[in-house]
């Protein structure tokens, strides 16, 4: 039931914020904050509670399974369930949700009630996506988050917001509808095979589909996810949407919305169409690598700070796709790490871009420079997150990228090498941000102020998480482990090799090394 409550608290909170926001703006802010905090704390307790038992029953990764009939004639049920991956992403959702509320505290002054309504409903949609275990329900949530996001960009965005909002909506909707076709196709194929017409994820798993059709169906799913993710030829909505959205919007877009794409691939594409996914793998990896390099090069040339950060997302998401299609535990764990750490690091960069915009009224980095003198705290934090984004060891992103690359190296050496070269590019654009914004001579006359207390709280939360993930990522890894193992089980061929290697490798250790030395 906790899952239903989670969605309920967001939706209810949104409605309440909308209604009470009519006569008191502050009230809706506090309502939003309380709703999210309650959910967050509840989730944290749940996580801690589950964490102890999580790796005992490796065979069953599912923690909660809630099911209620919805449209029984179609075999549609209101079916929520979470495993480690969902739990982790849910925690992330609520965490970033709180930050989104905080960072728009003073930013949004008009139509506050409606703003928080949209914000909470987006989060509700995203939470739903992470929990839905019924394909119809999944699609339902998948689309449900679009409208509030559209409003968020279209109403509270900056100059070119309407264009960006359209573009965002149309890209995601078009791809989503293709997924709907694939979902329905799968439904009928399964129904014809077994006589049971259902959208239940667990029953659809292992549907026997002829390879040709499976490939097309998988493409239907893939297109929705890669547009969201995004990978390269489908990425152009992202820079527009990210740069025009209000700060909280960019944060949620980069931090959560993109993650739904990766989640979808992990949850649906791989388990439902293992064979087709394997066929697609080389191409997907290729596009991932193209994304890494292409996004980085584009990021380098941007002068709009938020656009720049947006393109870095394209680059980072390339790693995700590369890792997913490597089909081994290391890469998949890396992907999950990347989802979390990218959300934090890019989110932080977007928040800071928002703060800069609020102070300087521009996003053009050519009009910035030398801000360190006046804002050393922000400078230092920006430096930290720029370093995170270029994959400095000790920060979470490094773990993610390293694991992905190690995993992918086994699957495809050449592509992995090119992807690794992407790390050089990431250094180039990350340092450019720091240089252009904070270093160099200052040409400003009017003073700007450093972090306020609220902003310090936001950034501290982000900083602590990224460092924690960089130095002790084990909780995350353990949490998703059963799920990843399940996935790995689907792709046995690729993984036999490592098992063997490891087996050979373990007997040798430092002790033998010394023995050998003496010889």
């Amino acid at each position, binding site marked *: 039931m906790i899952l239903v409550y989670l969605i309920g608290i967001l939706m209810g909170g949104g409605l309440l914020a909308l209604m009470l926001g009519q006569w008191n703006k502050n009230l809706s802010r506090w309502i939003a904050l309380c709703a999210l905090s309650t959910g967050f704390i509840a989730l944290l307790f749940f996580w801690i509670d589950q964490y102890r038992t999580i790796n005992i029953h490796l065979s069953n990764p599912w923690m909660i399974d809630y099911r209620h009939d919805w449209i029984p004639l179609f075999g549609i049920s209101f079916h929520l369930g979470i495993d480690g991956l969902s739990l982790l992403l849910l925690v992330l959702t609520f965490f970033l949700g709180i930050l989104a509320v905080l960072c728009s505290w003073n930013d949004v002054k008009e139509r506050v009630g409606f703003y928080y309504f949209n914000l909470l409903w987006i989060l509700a949609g995203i939470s739903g996506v992470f929990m839905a275990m019924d394909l119809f329900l999944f699609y339902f949530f998948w689309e449900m988050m679009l409208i509030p996001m559209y409003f968020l960009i279209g109403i509270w965005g900056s100059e070119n917001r309407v264009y960006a909002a359209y573009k965002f909506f149309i890209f995601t909707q078009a791809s989503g509808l293709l997924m709907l076709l694939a979902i329905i196709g799968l439904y009928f194929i399964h129904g014809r095979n077994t006589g049971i017409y259902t959208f239940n994820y667990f029953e659809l798993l292992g549907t026997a589909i002829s390879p040709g059709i499976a490939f097309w169906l998988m493409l239907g799913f893939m297109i929705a996810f890669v547009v969201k993710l995004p990978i390269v030829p489908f990425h152009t909505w992202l820079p527009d949407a990210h740069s025009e959205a209000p700060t909280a919007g960019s944060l949620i877009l980069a931090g959560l919305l993109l993650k739904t794409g990766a989640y979808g691939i992990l949850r649906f594409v791989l388990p439902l169409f293992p064979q087709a996914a394997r066929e697609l793998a080389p191409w997907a990896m290729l596009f991932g690598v193209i994304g890494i390099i292409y996004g980085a090069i584009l990021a380098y040339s941007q002068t709009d700070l938020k656009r720049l950060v947006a393109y870095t997302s394209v680059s980072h998401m390339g790693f995700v796709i590369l890792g997913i299609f490597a089909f081994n535990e290391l890469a998949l764990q890396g992907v999950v790490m990347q989802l979390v750490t990218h959300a934090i690091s890019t989110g932080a960069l977007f928040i800071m871009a928002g703060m800069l915009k609020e102070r300087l009224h521009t996003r053009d980095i050519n009009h910035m420079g030398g801000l360190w003198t006046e804002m050393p705290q922000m400078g230092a934090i920006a430096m930290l997150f720029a370093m995170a984004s270029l994959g400095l060891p000790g920060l979470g992103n490094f773990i993610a990228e390293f694991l992905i690359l190690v995993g992918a190296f086994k699957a495809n050496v050449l592509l992995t090498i090119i992807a690794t070269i992407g790390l050089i590019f990431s250094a180039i654009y990350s340092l450019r941000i720091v*240089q252009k914004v904070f270093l160099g001579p200052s040409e400003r006359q009017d003073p700007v102020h450093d972090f306020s207390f609220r902003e310090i709280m936001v950034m501290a939360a982000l900083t602590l998480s990224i460092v924690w993930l960089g130095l*002790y990522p*084990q909780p995350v890894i353990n949490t998703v482990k059963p799920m990843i193992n399940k996935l790995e089980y689907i792709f046995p061929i690729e993984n036999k090799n490592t098992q063997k290697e490891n087996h050979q490798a373990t007997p040798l250790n430092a002790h033998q090394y010394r023995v050998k030395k003496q010889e």
Partner: protein
Amino acid sequence: MNNLLWLVPTLPLVSFLILALAGKHVSRVWVAIIGAGSVSLSAIITLIIGISFLSLPPATGNYSQTLWTWMQVGGFNPKITLFLDALSLIFVFVITFIGALIHIYSVGFMADDKDYSRFFACMNLFVFSMLLLVLADNLLLLYLGWEGVGLCSYLLIGFWYENPANGYAARKAFIITRVGDTAMAIGLFVIFYQFGTLVIPDVLAKAPILWHQGAYMATITALLLLAGGVGKSAQLPLQTWLPDAMAGPSPVSALIHAATMVTAGVYLIARMHVIFQLSPIAQMIVAVIGTATLFIAGLSALTQYDIKRVLAYSTISQIGYMFLALGVGAWTAAIFHFVIHAFFKALLFLAAGAVIEALHHEHNMFKMGGLKNKLPVIFWTFLVGSASLAALPLISAGFYSKDQILWYAWASQSGNPLLWFIALLGAFITALYTTRMMILVFWGEAKTAIGHHPGKLMTVPLIILAFFSLFAGFIELPHNFGHFTLFSNLLHQVLPETVLKAGINTELQFQVLASLSTFGGIYLAYIFYYKQPQRIEKLKQSGFAMNLYFFWFSGWGFDKLYNVLIVKPIVFIANINKNDVVDKLYQGITFVTIRLYQSLSFTQSGSLRWYVMGLVIGAIIILSIQIML
């Protein structure tokens, strides 16, 4: 006492955290005490550990301390483990000890800087990362330190951030080393898949079992690791960042870009020596890179007028010697030279910093001069450092370390006369530019008035370093000269002994030759820059000499080459594609849609007769399809 090991890196880290978080609220005195004190404390703990390690060596020859498991994924479980053996002990000693001296020096040197606490925070972070680098028991942790020192180097080169040139130099340093790091990361992947682990001792133990001598994979792995080392240690072809890195404050140059960080490549190769031994080709390449670098950088040093750039090129050149030593299998000689070089190069940088500060931040040697009597302490310590750099026979520590390398370049199993000869030539050039620098700075007439004299905080570390620059050489004496091998004995626990092909009786001849080249260099500089400066003027008349001069001055045109080959094309592509060519595709779709709309809406003409026509045409189409099919 060994279990105090974790304190060594932790103290600077704690200090960094305090300064970074609360630096604004701490008075300058306390900043200095925390910043310099933490490193000094580390140095003292290192001494204690070192003594206990030497007096009571662990049975296994090493000591490791696991703090926690970093992560556990599949078969991959790197731990945060500190690993102490003779090699890392020497490095830890150099880092903490010289680090502490430089910190103390900085208290005086940076006294007037507004970002006092930021400076010490970064320096502490650097010491921490460097310690982690040398203490890491697995390659991933090493990589953490490796990148961490890169970050600190970046932060400190660009310390005076108002000047965009400094920021540019910092970025250049970071990115070029990152190129090497990337190759090294790939090397890590290879190692992981070959051995299933990144723990260094395990890797080294398995390598000879898994790979035969000269194995293809060994060469690849070694070359990838070498690429990392080349980037960090500013060797050919990734050396171009180091001269620009002199934009940072002098203590930074002393600590990071002379004594410690730039020798990380040497450490890496020494640490992974088993893999290099398995691949003669890779080792050969190491030697060749070292030799080429020492020669090229030496000639460049000869032409610089900025005192710090002279020292920078000289650093590149000296690290070239270390690479040469590593390449010919003279493992201990390389490390020995590293230690000695750390002393005298730190000394030179610090002294140069003192000179520069005394002369109102004047870097140009041609505007210095006549400081011999005005800054006596600086003069004498600088002289000692220069002597050591030029390898003045017998009395300087530099002689003992460099001579060993020269001799091994000839005499070791993989030694080669050509390598030796170029190295010898390098020694000659070293003496030449060192003397040139001495003469230009300290002799002649004074061209710039002295602003302020260095205080005790600055001179005392100089004197200590000068002491070591003179006498540290005596811990390792040549075969024919006492054959005192304290240093190499210690290291032979970890590193193999050098295999010789020539008898040790030839060593004396080579020592004489090396001494002659040193004296030759000194004499030539004496002639050109002191006795008969008009000869320089005459040389300047010649077009060929001037071209050569500019060629060397620009660091053999590497910067230009990279600019044209790599930087410009990428920037060009990035700039023309700023608006994302892929987006054109979608704009095209939009355009087509709108055109379709326009032509379709033209059919909605409002004319009833046209609508009737439409109906009729529709009917005709339907009927004809039905009849036809």
